[in-house]
């Protein structure tokens, strides 16, 4: 419990910053919605002028772009990118910070097992994601309600926002497992930014190709918002793949971290 609280305390500031950034994205885009709704026909024409592949990359569906949910599916894509970066950063740093900041000689000689340390840190990260996502969801729900031009399904809105947590968990798990097995990494940001943006760009490219198999490559494509809106369901194969990545990575973290040598500072 003490380790969990310590981690939460040390993650306080970054969590507030990330949450504010995500809310700001939603605020900026959603504030445009009433204007876009009024000029719906023009806006649609303008987007129709774009090549179909570009539209797909941006996550634009012409038919629904003027509905709150259709418009929001564009916004949530950016927010999820944000959440992905946050999660991968956190995943890569939370276990490796002890060796990078050279505090391992403090924490790892305390009367606690390595597994207990991993558990405390994982739970702290999960808490951070929940705080971020619940705060963001509350803010986004209020904003969407305020700018709505017609009624929309709150359930679907919730389902769309829940994908933020799923993507965060996937990137967190990938980041954590990378940090356990590549312990010579000196800085976290270049690797996590590279990986997440890489996945995002790949996701955008394969969105244009409509190849269902290619979608497995990028976690950003595991959740297709137009499909969620039309079917009110997540696509099982992708959801299961995401879950498998998380479970396997976290298991690997536990085994890897409990067995690795913690070397002296040099």
């Amino acid at each position, binding site marked *: 419990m*003490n380790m969990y609280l*310590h981690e939460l305390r*040390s993650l306080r500031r970054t969590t507030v910053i990330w949450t504010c950034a995500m809310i700001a994205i939603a605020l900026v885009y959603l504030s445009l919605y009433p204007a876009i709704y009024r000029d719906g026909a023009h806006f649609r024409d303008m987007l129709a002028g774009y090549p179909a592949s570009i539209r797909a990359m941006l996550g634009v569906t012409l038919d629904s772009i003027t509905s709150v949910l259709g418009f929001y599916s564009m916004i949530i894509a950016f927010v999820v990118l944000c959440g992905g970066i946050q999660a991968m950063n956190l995943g890569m740093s939370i276990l490796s910070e002890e060796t990078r*900041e*050279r*505090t*391992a*000689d*403090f924490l*790892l*000689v*305390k*009367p*606690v*097992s*390595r597994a*207990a340390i991993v558990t405390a840190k994982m739970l702290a990260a999960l808490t951070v994601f929940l705080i971020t996502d619940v705060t963001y969801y509350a803010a986004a729900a209020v904003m969407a309600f305020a700018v709505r031009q017609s009624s929309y399904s709150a359930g679907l809105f919730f389902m769309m926002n829940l994908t933020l947590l799923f993507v965060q968990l996937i990137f967190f798990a990938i980041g954590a497992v990378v940090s356990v097995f590549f312990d010579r990494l000196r800085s976290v940001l270049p690797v996590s930014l590279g990986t997440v943006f890489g996945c995002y760009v790949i996701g955008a490219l394969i969105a244009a190709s409509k190849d269902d198999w290619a979608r497995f490559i990028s976690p950003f494509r595991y959740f297709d918002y137009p499909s969620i809106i039309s079917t009110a369901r997540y696509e099982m194969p992708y959801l299961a793949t995401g879950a498998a990545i998380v479970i396997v990575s976290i298991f690997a973290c536990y085994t890897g971290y409990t*067995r690795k*040598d*913690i*070397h*002296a*500072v040099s």
Partner: protein
Amino acid sequence: MSVIDIEHLTKNYGKARGIIDVSLAVEQGEIFGFVGPNGAGKSTTIRTLLGLIYPTSGRATIFGKSCATNPEVRRDVGYLPSEVFYYDGMRVIDLLRYSASFYKKDCTKRISELAEIMDLDLKKRIDDLSFGNKKKVGIVQGLIHEPRLIILDEPTSGLDPLMQQRFFDLIASENKKGATVFLSSHILREVQKMCERVALIKEGRIIKVERMSALQENNFKRIKVESRADFDKTIFDMEGVTKVENGGKTATFLFKGDINRVIRRLAQVDVSNLSIDEPDLEEIFMHYYAKDG
């Protein structure tokens, strides 16, 4: 049961040298010195003992249990690493409270006592402290829970002489209260002052485990003799005499063996001055380390 028990401990680091077949035992209430040059394997041995790294073969236990499989034995261990770094943005008191929270006892009083002895400002942020002051945080942090075993890895680097003295007084008083102390160092003076037994480690192997007193007794005496007339060249030709420096009326040499033999020999000369010194650990040490290159 020994407090520390290390048996045939080996750690390979691929090509780099680790430690090879290290065995030693530290008994209850002892102050045990662990001496060797940088890179000899002192830290590797300690880190394996604490469960920070895993041995290739052999075993290392504290109070009969391995730290790797029984992390709860570390409740009775206080460890001061050679270099200390702590979480950014924490105040000294926050860190000490966090450290204390791992042990199931109230350490509030102990924190203020130790801070006073080590002259440590609890309200300062750790980032703002000098290296020496960070080291003090490390010392207090390691002793906060009144451990029954104190493991020190190069403890005094960065401390000024006054603080070194206070630190050793503190360790001595903990020892008097019953704590066993394992002191790793390459500074021989502090080992000589504190320890009852020492282990010498060289290139990953233990080359000697000996009582401090025996190490000094059974070894060389440094003898300096002055005479009124020039020394006869043959007078120092006897068993046990080495490193003769005959400067005419004064001569120095090292002697190993029964001291009476050398006294009888010197009685043949008209001696004007004679001094027989215990060699300090430095010399013994150099002897062991220089011996096979």
